[in-house]
């Protein structure tokens, strides 16, 4: 490992050094232009906005903080910078022969008027950048709100519209990415891990969409700065809060009531949001009219402070996220459930010349509990305490190339208290520290090509057992063949040393405890290969085709053959997944179409037996259209189709000897129970799933109050999509029926 690491570091330094010569050449006659793109009405930053300099034919996008940085701009030459963002009026700024070392801008874009349905945006065809990015979806708050609403917009339900993402149905926001299990995904909120990002058994996301500023969703081959999961990263950045004036929102729908207040403060802004469930009735619709009296809340806040006097171009942030779900049956013959997230974090960011600093410390705690009451459920409790500190440095060279270095220290304590089949209390208490850093070099110098090459270096294993020093090398390349076409490829190694004990055979898992991978198992690892092509032959019509191949080994899987107390709870398994994804997107002024198709194959292997995982569906297609009708009216529709997920058929019955007493009597005189004999595991497929949803929205301005009214119809043609088939009763349990819902939101 040491040899590989030395070699790798040497290579990165060599790359950095080679391009440093170009920097010297550039630095003599160039300046830097940096800035923040934000909304003029509330100061909220605009992530993923486009910034373009036509004279240099250079374009970049703002990051999740709305920040952009151009280096290597020739001094003394007049340039124009164009800022554009969907739904906002494009802005041009002309620099007459800029001088000096660096110019810092604060660009505020004005939203398009509500009653404008046809607008003309400045017609430059922005040059496509050469950023080496693949399998990434950048999702803004506006996009999140554009889909038809299942009761309300939902952060995780939105992901189901991404190519390569699969789910097991309406009653779960759990998602599965490119053949990986749900516990191979991580949801980050402002870089802090949310261990259970669900409300109501996983039907809804615990993150209120109203607090979301942007989301970055990596479906694989993600860059070096991210770690800890085999399949995907969802990084949610919350809103900063209104920097212009104090404001607020209040909304009510069939599920919850919620409110948000935000406003400016000395040197910064704040945002406080809360949501509380008001009725479990809507949840019954998701669960075949069964009565589950869920009660939940979530609460979040963010405070930003940026004092120019103290630090130039810096921002200090404190954020928190708290959620809790209770399922209290008030019936001693039914068990009660509880789970909660408590997250608190601080973040310091500064742009100093060409150097980005980001320092963060986050604390995330997860609590889950089952109280069995008078049932045979096992009394169980899971507590995870996670303190993660990280430092990320990004140095942008004059040549546009970047050097990224980061350090991550993650201290985790996991405790699982449960009872085994014998009723004995098991207290599994583990703690560990993961220490890793990464180094990568981003080559953006060549206009036709971008390369991101780097590696994570894991210095410790969280459990302390097994190989402690490991590399996770990763590389991404983008090659722009023409302004309209780019090809991309990526590969990387990814590791995971933290697992949730989830049983894929459970239709609705209520208790998924998280554990540091036990020492008797190797940490899971995965290799991703991705390649794709993106095109824009017609203006504003994007087509992206990606292919991927992913193998994973040492996946921690529940030991279904655990019978004796001495048997391990988890065993290592393997998986293989490959497929192709096509994304079609067109963003017109008042009309957007997003469509995705994926063709995939996935297999798991455990005990030497291969099978398709429960969440697998070969074909996934969806199309979402939203249309601005003008006058404050909007309409949207979404249609989803997935081929059926696998299940295990019954192939007959047999009489099984019941040995609940002793063998002491004559064997054949004892009782026999009737057992279903199962066919090959997951060898058959449920019927296909499809559903059409519609939403019509109206925005009304009454004095200073904006009123948003949404009427939605879920499953317009009342498709009877099967949820699962009860083997014992023969009952077919269906998912959501035809369901009208509404949301009313007031904003000041």
């Amino acid at each position, binding site marked *: 490992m040491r040899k590989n690491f030395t070699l790798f570091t040497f290579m990165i330094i060599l790359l950095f050094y080679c391009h440093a010569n170009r920097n010297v050449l550039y630095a003599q006659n160039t300046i830097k232009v940096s800035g923040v793109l934000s909304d003029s009405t509330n100061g909220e930053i605009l992530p993923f906005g486009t910034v373009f300099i036509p004279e240099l034919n250079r374009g970049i996008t703002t990051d999740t903080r709305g920040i952009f940085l151009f280096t290597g701009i020739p001094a003394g030459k007049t340039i124009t910078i164009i800022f554009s963002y969907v739904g906002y009026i494009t802005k041009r700024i002309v620099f007459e022969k800029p001088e000096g070392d660096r110019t810092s801008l604060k660009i505020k874009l004005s939203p398009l008027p509500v009653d404008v349905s046809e607008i003309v945006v400045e017609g430059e065809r922005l040059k496509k950048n050469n950023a080496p990015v693949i399998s990434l979806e950048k999702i803004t708050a506006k996009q999140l709100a554009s889909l038809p609403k299942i009761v309300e917009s939902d952060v995780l339900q939105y992901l189901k519209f991404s190519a390569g993402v699969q789910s097991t149905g309406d009653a779960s926001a759990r998602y599965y990415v490119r053949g990986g299990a749900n516990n191979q995904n991580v949801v980050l909120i402002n870089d802090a891990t949310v261990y259970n990002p669900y409300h109501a058994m996983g039907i809804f996301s615990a993150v209120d969409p109203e607090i979301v500023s942007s989301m970055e969703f990596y479906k694989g081959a993600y860059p070096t700065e991210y770690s800890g999961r085999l399949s995907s990263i969802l990084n949610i950045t919350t809103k900063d809060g209104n920097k212009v004036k104090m404001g607020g929102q209040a909304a009510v729908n069939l599920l919850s009531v919620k409110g948000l207040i935000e406003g400016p403060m000395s040197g910064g802004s704040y945002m406080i949001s809360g949501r509380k469930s008001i009725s479990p009735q809507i949840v019954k619709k998701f669960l075949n009219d069964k009565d589950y009296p869920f009660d939940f809340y979530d609460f979040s806040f963010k405070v930003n402070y940026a004092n120019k006097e103290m630090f130039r171009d810096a921002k200090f942030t404190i954020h928190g996220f708290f959620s809790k779900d209770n399922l209290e049956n008030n019936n001693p013959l039914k068990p009660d459930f509880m789970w909660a997230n408590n997250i608190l974090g601080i973040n310091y960011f500064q742009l100093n010349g060409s150097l980005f600093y980001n320092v963060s410390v986050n604390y995330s705690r997860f609590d889950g509990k089952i109280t069995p009451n008078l049932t045979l459920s096992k009394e169980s409790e899971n507590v995870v305490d996670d303190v993660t500190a990280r430092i990320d440095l990004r140095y942008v060279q004059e040549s546009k190339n970047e050097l990224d270095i980061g350090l991550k220290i993650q201290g985790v304590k996991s405790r699982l208290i449960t009872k085994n089949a014998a009723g004995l209390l098991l207290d599994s208490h583990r703690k560990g520290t993961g220490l890793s850093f990464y180094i990568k070099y981003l080559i953006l110098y060549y206009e036709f090509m971008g390369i991101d090459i780097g590696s994570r270096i894991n210095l410790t294993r969280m459990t302390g057992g097994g190989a402690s020093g490991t590399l996770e090398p990763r590389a991404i390349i983008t090659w722009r063949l023409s302004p309209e076409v780019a090809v991309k490829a990526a590969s990387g190694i990814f590791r995971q040393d933290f697992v949730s004990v989830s049983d894929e055979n459970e239709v609705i898992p209520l208790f998924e405890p998280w554990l540091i991978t036990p020492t008797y198992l190797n940490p899971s690892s995965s290799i991703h290969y991705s390649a794709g092509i993106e095109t824009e032959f017609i203006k504003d019509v994007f087509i992206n085709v990606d292919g991927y191949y992913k193998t994973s080994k040492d996946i921690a899987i529940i030991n279904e053959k655990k019978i004796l107390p001495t048997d391990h709870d988890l065993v290592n398994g393997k998986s293989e997944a490959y497929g192709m994804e096509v994304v079609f997107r067109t963003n017109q002024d008042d009309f957007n179409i997003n469509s995705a198709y994926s063709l995939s194959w996935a297999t798991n292997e455990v005990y030497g037996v291969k099978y398709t995982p429960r969440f697998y569906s070969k074909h996934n297609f969806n199309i979402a259209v939203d249309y601005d009708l003008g006058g404050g009216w909007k309409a949207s529709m979404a249609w989803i189709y997935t081929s059926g997920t696998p299940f295990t058929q019954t192939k*007959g019955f*047999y009489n099984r000897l019941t040995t609940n007493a002793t063998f002491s009597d004559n064997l*054949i005189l004892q009782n026999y129970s009737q057992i279903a004999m199962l066919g090959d595991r997951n060898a058959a497929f449920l019927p296909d799933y499809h559903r059409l949803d519609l939403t019509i929205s109206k925005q009304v301005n009454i004095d200073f109050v904006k009123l948003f009214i949404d009427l939605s119809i879920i499953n317009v043609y009342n498709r009877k999509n099967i949820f699962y088939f009860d083997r014992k009763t023969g009952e077919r349990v269906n998912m959501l029926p035809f369901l009208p819902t509404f949301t009313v939101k007031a904003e000041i």
Partner: protein
Amino acid sequence: MRKTIFVILVVSSAIFISCDDNLSPKTPFTEQYALYCVLNTDTTYQTAYISKSYDVEGFDPLTNTTDPALEGADIRIRVNGQAVYNFTETTTARTDTSRYKTPVKYYELNNLKINDNDRIEIWASLRNGKILWSYTQAPPNSLLYFETATREYFPSVTAPQTLDIKFGWTILGSQYGDKVFYFYPQLELVYSKADNPGKLYRKIVPKMISASSGSVINPTVTSNKTAYFYYEAIVKAFEVISEGDPQKSNYIIHNAEFTLLFLDRYSASYMASASTFRDEFSMRIDAPDYTNIQNGYGVFGVYSNKKVKVNIARTFINSFGYRLGQ
């Protein structure tokens, strides 16, 4: 134009009107077989049972009323690769004829004595030529001894403050120092009723009572060499004997009997798999199952049992209103 496209998309999507699906919860039925044979090392009389699988209309297996027991099989046991023993077919009267009317069909063997560490194989050749096969190794039954700490009187005379009952045992022989063995401990109250004192009843004593739910927790297969039965569980078993009957004095408690099953790995696994459970919200699709029979289902194993009689103090029995038997 754009409105037209929007309408077309809505309408074209809506043509997927709900319709019947081709769902096949069952795969075509093929007959399979289950063999049950758990040898008892304490006797030379052994039994085996073979049944065939069946299908029913719908999903309720109880609607099948045809006895699935299989006749005409040739079942043989081979011990340590040499001696071969043949089972013979026999029947016995069925006590419960609510489902199956015909006598119970099974196989028996009268002259098989199992010794410590014997390697035993079983073949069952069915009439259709199919062969079910398995093997196991007998545990060292002769080396199992109860420890002196094992209770033979309750409550303890020497330590009356110790209200729980503990049983301990050991396997002699240095060669077994680290080897894992499997046991199933069970404690039963032996009692009779005044109206028919000759008939003995047995009541299983739970291992413990759940502090949170109050539910009883029974013993299960373990590799520990101790077993505890907690005071609350013993009291519960005493109470349940006469639950609903005000005439407590009609109950005559004779003693308690501790039985320790010494199991091979396969019968231990089979017993343990039968006692797993899930909570009601965990709607699990597939139930766990266990078999060590090649080409079929069921179990082939070996066990022995050892018993300890536990006398119970008259004062304790009387505290429930019961009487002490002889």
